[in-house]
């Protein structure tokens, strides 16, 4: 990348070539991926890169990365609670560590350390259990106490003054943040280079199913014949699954986030508090990026609310009293597809050729590489990889849930 920049500097001001191209919509593709976010594009990239399947279309209703991939708070970690979850997200962190090299594009992954605060005895016990589960599986994660928290994060209030004093924290040094747009663009660029067609402003309006098999997709730009469709959408995953006649155990909630005005370097680590429903990190621009729990009722609306701003500001001040004069710069919301066991749904459905990679709730972005890679494996080989087996859609009928309460950093 740096050589490219240097060459560009010496070449004068000619614009860089487009990172992905536009193509006419073909009337048939081997694989159609619905949703041009990090998940869909990662799957397209690994299909082309690992399995040589390049006759792939990625259909995106708006522009790529306009959904959850561009709205999350970019935290990446693997200190989950269940062994299935830890295994899965650990592979994701390892793929993210190599991603800048793999994609030849700087995704600015900064592994700065991730602290999940515990404010009650119960939370301390859970953190201890998570640390043990993590260590058994080789994930760097341990329980630390207020003195060490203060050392890692000087501005935090570890006194016994707040309503919820800090008793301890789960410290996960490999946890980090990343530039989420770069991940989307990097995957799009490399997929495009290998022959994948990325169709933006192309909305799916129907899925054609004949005798329990997918035969094609209707879009606003015409009909596509295909035997393999992957639903990699968030927010609209129930709408898309309905088109194929597949029932999903998903409820969509908005989740709001905001950033403050830029500050001098203030916060090195990522601070998360489940009891206070807040997670915060400082971006390279100096803004504090903050997110909360999902909104209190299901909705597809992405409007901000005063209740959220008041709530998060109060909780932030409890952790960082020094921020009392800092203003919020902007606020946004994304859609989270919540499942009953706070785990995603990946794999086959009762309709042959219709796969899902949905239900990503509040933990989708951090799983993009691993879900993309493993879904590509499923599409190419027709066999569900062991890593995806716990997350199959049939687990609900079989009453074999994952129960990942360490999923979102926020309380449930």
């Amino acid at each position, binding site marked *: 990348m740096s050589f490219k920049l240097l060459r560009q500097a010496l070449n004068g001001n000619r614009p860089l070539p487009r990172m992905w191209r536009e193509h006419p919509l073909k009337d048939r593709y081997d694989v159609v991926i619905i949703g041009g976010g990090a998940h869909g594009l990662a799957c397209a990239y690994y299909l082309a890169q690992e399995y040589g399947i390049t006759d792939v279309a990625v259909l995106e209703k708006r522009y790529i990365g306009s959904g959850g991939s561009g709205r999350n708070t970019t935290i990446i970690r693997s200190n989950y609670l269940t062994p299935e979850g830890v295994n899965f997200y650990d592979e994701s962190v390892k793929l993210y560590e190599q991603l800048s090299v793999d994609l030849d594009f700087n995704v600015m992954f900064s592994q700065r350390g991730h602290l999940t605060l515990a404010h009650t005895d119960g939370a301390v016990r859970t953190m201890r259990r998570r640390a043990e589960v993590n260590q058994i599986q080789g994930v760097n994660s341990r329980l630390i106490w207020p003195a060490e928290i203060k050392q890692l994060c000087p501005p935090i209030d570890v006194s016994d003054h707040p309503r919820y004093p800090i008793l301890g924290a789960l410290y996960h040094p490999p946890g980090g943040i990343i530039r989420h747009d770069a991940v989307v663009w990097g995957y799009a660029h490399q997929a495009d280079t290998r022959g994948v067609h990325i169709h933006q402003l192309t909305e799916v309006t129907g899925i054609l199913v004949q005798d329990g098999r997918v035969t094609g997709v209707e879009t606003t730009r015409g009909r596509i014949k295909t035997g393999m469709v992957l639903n990699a959408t968030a927010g*609209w995953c*129930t*709408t898309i699954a309905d088109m194929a006649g597949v*029932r*999903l*155990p*998903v*409820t*969509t909630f908005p989740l709001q986030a905001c950033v403050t005005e830029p500050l001098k370097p203030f916060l090195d680590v990522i601070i998360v508090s489940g009891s206070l429903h807040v997670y915060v990190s400082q971006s390279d621009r100096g803004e504090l990026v903050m997110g909360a729990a999902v909104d*209190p*009722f*299901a*909705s*597809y*609306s992405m*409007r901000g609310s005063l*209740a959220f701003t008041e709530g998060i500001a109060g909780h932030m001040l409890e952790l960082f009293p020094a921020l009392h004069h800092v203003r919020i710069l902007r606020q946004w919301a994304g859609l989270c597809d919540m499942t*009953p066991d706070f785990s995603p749904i990946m794999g086959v459905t009762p309709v042959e050729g219709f796969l899902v990679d949905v239900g990503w709730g509040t933990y989708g972005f951090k799983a993009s590489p691993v879900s993309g890679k493993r879904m590509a494996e499923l599409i190419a080989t027709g066999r569900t990889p062991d890593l995806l087996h716990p997350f199959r859609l049939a687990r*609900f*009928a079989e009453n074999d849930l994952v129960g990942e309460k360490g999923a979102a950093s926020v309380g449930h």
Partner: protein
Amino acid sequence: MIQIPCPHCGLRNAQEFRYGGEYNPRPWHPLEAGDAEWTEYVFMRDNQWGVQKEWWFHRAGCQAWFLAERHTKTNEISRTYLWKPET
């Protein structure tokens, strides 16, 4: 959404209420319902994009559970009413 019309108390601040999920009646004959029907009832959801019939609870008011019809994109509530047994 800022205010919700409670069937008893009229328009009140939305923060007084608790959301109870989409209207999803239990299988009418529990002993006869098979696994598929229970799976559908316990886990599967319509997750409607459009007008949804749903439960609300007036937590800081009359303490009543009632039904609302709300558009899930605009959050506009067209109707709220008390549940009545189906005849």
